[in-house]
């Protein structure tokens, strides 16, 4: 049965032995996030955490974190679980199934308000108060308390396209908030280009968690014009249930933990940030548009999902790694028809690796140009392109290719024209990064396709230096030899 909400996801995590429920009182003020940060660092993706006893709040009002944080060797495992797949599934089987579901969106289905768990409690006007919930204060450098796992829902007034996007949301007061409003992202661009340009207030809803597929869809990077609610339905193979908001015409996930309803007024700004971002650095204060909330609905005993940014390996890093790798793989192979075998973005600091055949001279530059022409160019500055046989999910293998095969004078392709990564490259002032000036991208060509075949020596790895029979014998002997470490073999890609 499809997981439809936070409660279902927590139950599935628990059944898989991947949930720790923490009954001891924990403070929403830094403490919960600090525990989550250490869990991200040392937990190796073993457990998501549910804090069930938050200081100053009723029992049952909880915080859950490390929901999608995973060990590097199985970062997709929690995604698989959220989508009803075996968490032990291999990456390539998961990718194939994930791409299949992405290609088959299903429109959501409206249900009656009385059947919607997100409306178990309804608060209007002055009774609506952000502080009724244990929204965490996550870093000592932050400018406020943040929601980090949500869908901001807004509609293009001309086309009717509804966008669901995940953007951080900072509490300013009981009914006032601000957030990340990057104009290169779909939801904010609808506000800047349509509503504010026309001096109109924009109706908006903020849906906190609910179906984990919402978060997966909202961070996928769907093209403009595509509604992430449709993608979420496709991920589950059945329509997602939605319900009409109380105070505007938007539809919200019926099983969200909390729904905040309101508007964003034109030309109104407030201090937003600083915020300790996924890169491990504080992004600094900016002036951002203001959410004015006029209604809050929620289910009883809501659980706030928390992404503790900055300490690897956290949810965002796992998300970006998985989503960008799969999305770019899909773009390069399906749209561009490049002979790419795999694309991997490292969870640490957005380094992109591509494993590919090299069918003709100049192909690597063409491939790099295609990648930098996508909207993902805001999330990394350099890519490493290697032969198809390389296991790019292991950074040691990619570094080896960089050291052995990238000619320092001939194989580094640089461009000055593209904007730098918005979150990184701190030797460039923030204003330059925001404006996309003084930018640059670089591609390291580590492929051997440029070289005549006679230049390539035989490889001496475990997988190539020993026959399959010998490798099997070693695997069988290993434990009998009294060796404790787990044996590790790499997949062989031709």
């Amino acid at each position, binding site marked *: 049965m499809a997981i439809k909400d936070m409660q279902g996801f927590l139950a599935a995590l628990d059944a898989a032995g991947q949930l720790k429920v923490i009954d001891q009182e924990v403070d929403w003020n830094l403490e919960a996030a600090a525990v989550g940060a250490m869990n991200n660092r040392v937990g190796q993706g073993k457990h998501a955490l549910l804090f069930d006893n938050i200081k100053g709040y009723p029992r049952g009002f909880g915080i859950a974190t490390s929901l999608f944080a995973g060990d590097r060797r199985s970062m997709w495992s929690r995604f698989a679980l959220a989508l009803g797949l075996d968490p032990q599934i291999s990456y390539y089987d998961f990718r194939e199934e994930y791409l299949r579901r992405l290609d088959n969106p299903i429109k959501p289905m409206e249900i009656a308000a009385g059947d919607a768990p997100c409306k178990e409690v309804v608060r209007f006007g002055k009774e609506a108060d952000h502080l009724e919930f244990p929204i965490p204060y996550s870093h*000592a*450098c932050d400018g406020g308390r943040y929601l980090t796992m949500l869908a901001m829902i807004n509609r293009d007034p001309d086309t009717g396209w509804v966008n669901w996007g995940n953007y951080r949301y900072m*509490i300013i*007061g009981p009914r006032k908030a601000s957030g990340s409003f990057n104009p290169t992202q779909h939801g904010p661009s609808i506000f800047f280009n349509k509503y504010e340009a026309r001096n109109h207030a924009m109706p908006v809803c903020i849906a906190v968690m609910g179906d984990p597929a919402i978060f997966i869809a909202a961070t996928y990077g769907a093209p403009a014009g595509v509604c992430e609610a449709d993608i979420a339905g496709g991920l589950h193979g059945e329509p997602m249930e939605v319900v009409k908001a109380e105070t505007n015409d938007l539809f919200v996930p019926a099983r969200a933990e909390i729904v905040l309803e309101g508007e964003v007024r034109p030309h109104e*700004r*407030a201090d937003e940030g*600083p915020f300790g971002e996924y890169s491990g650095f*504080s992004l600094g204060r900016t002036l951002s548009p203001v959410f004015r909330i006029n209604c809050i609905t929620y289910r009883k005993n809501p659980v706030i999902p928390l992404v503790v940014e900055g300490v690897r390996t956290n949810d965002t890093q796992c998300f970006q790694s998985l989503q960008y790798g799969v999305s770019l793989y899909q773009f390069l192979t399906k749209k561009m028809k490049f002979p790419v075998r795999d694309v991997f973005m490292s969870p640490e600091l957005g380094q992109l690796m591509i494993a590919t055949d090299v069918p003709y001279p100049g192909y690597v530059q063409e491939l790099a140009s295609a990648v930098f022409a996508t909207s993902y160019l805001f999330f990394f500055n350099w890519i490493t392109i290697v032969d198809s046989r390389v296991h790019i999910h292991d950074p040691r293998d990619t570094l080896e290719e960089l050291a052995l095969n990238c000619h320092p004078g001939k194989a580094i392709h640089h461009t000055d024209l593209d904007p730098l990564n918005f979150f990184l490259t701190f030797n460039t002032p923030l204003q330059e990064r925001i404006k996309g000036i003084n930018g640059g991208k670089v591609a390291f060509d580590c492929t051997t396709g440029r070289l005549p075949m006679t230049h390539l020596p035989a490889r001496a790895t475990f997988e190539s230096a020993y026959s399959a029979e010998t490798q099997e014998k070693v695997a069988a002997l290993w434990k009998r030899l009294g060796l404790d470490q787990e044996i590790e073999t790499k997949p062989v890609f031709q």
Partner: protein
Amino acid sequence: MPNEGYEIHEVYLVKHDKEIEAGNPIVCELMPLATYSRILVRAHVSRSYDARPGMEQLWVREDDGTLQGRPWAIHILEELDPDEVAFEPEARSTLELKS
């Protein structure tokens, strides 16, 4: 452990530097460190905190996220309704574009 008192963005102290030096009250937005839910106040602000009665700690946050090591002092005269008293946020105090 979290600090006590309030937090303010440095840019607002720069903006009201003359009034502060003259000992006049200023209108500013504060973040109480007990709730992190901002309030608009009229208050006296001074550069050093010495725990006098009525004075509370005012921590200063710079635009890049760093917190100044020592608190200022604040004495809140009244809390204001942000829907009735206009408060315009200040853009970043410097825009340095290095060539």
